């Protein structure tokens, strides 16, 4: 085993950890996220527009890439359902690639439409979007199972 050089002098570690655990630090951080929230929601909206474009163009790489951006940013700014739907789409596309099977077009359309609703709709629809994320994940798993069965046959 090799022990790496510590990041901080031992005398500074305690002060650093006090700062990390300080309630005021947490509040400042939350204020930073809140102050950028509007701007970041607009950015997520832009990714969703590109997601729709990628679906229309049938560009699977772009579809994955935009969904990946959405899942990375959306939940941080409160678009929880959009983030989870995008994560489900990424996982599905990743499995499709991994198993070398064709992506199910209606399923992709459902994912993209759900992401659009979850990003742009008001509260009620957002809650529904969360439910849709769970249902889509179940549907994706079923479709992948069917694809596996077909390969066996």
């Amino acid at each position, binding site marked *: *085993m*090799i*022990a790496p050089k510590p990041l901080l002098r031992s005398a500074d570690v305690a*002060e650093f*950890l006090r*700062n990390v655990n300080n309630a005021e*630090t947490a509040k400042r951080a939350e204020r930073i996220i809140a102050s950028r929230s509007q701007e*970041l929601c607009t950015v997520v909206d832009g990714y969703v527009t590109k997601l729709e474009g990628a679906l229309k163009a049938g560009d699977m790489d772009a579809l994955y890439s935009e969904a990946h951006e959405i899942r990375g*940013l959306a939940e*941080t700014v409160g678009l929880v359902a959009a983030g989870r739907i995008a994560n489900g789409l990424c996982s599905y596309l990743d499995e499709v690639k991994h198993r070398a099977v064709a992506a199910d077009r209606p399923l992709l359309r459902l994912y993209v439409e759900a992401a659009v609703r979850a990003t742009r709709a008001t509260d009620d629809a957002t809650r529904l979007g969360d439910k849709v994320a769970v249902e889509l994940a179940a549907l994706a798993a079923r479709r992948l199972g069917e694809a596996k069965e077909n390969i066996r046959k």
Partner: protein
Amino acid sequence: MPASFDYLKALVIEDNAHMRALLRSLLHTLGIKTVLEAADGGAGYVELREKRPDFVLSDLSMKPVDGIEFTRMVRTAQDSPNPYVPIVMVTGHTERHRVEAARDAGVTEFLAKPITAQNLFLRVAELVERPRAFVRSDSYFGPDRRRHKSADYPGPFRRKDDFKDDIEIQ
């Protein structure tokens, strides 16, 4: 009162400029004043060589050089300026094979997106409070991937360190 850890330098490698700015601001709130930035692993490696950050937050998916390749370069390249630098992989990828590939490249910690301030702070605190020991074998160099020591572990005992308590200091 100025913090006494002003000398700590972070490097953020992330292709999304918005996420980069958010991470930079959050690190500032911890009192880390110097936050270097790069948009992909190649540019990040240049920053690492020229400015010697103390730790790195890196995204996984980036072009042309992704976070896994960056980590491999840092850990194993002949010209790596600091093979021991802690690397936190900030990723939205939850797919097991990607996470395993990052771990096997020598990532120190993972931080899952969506980012929350609390999770980011916990990871940085972990780097400061409990630096991970490194191991070197024929096929791997990087932080020890065994997270826990179990008294009930039945073996196999393949490491020299399984038979001695001594550790080498870098």
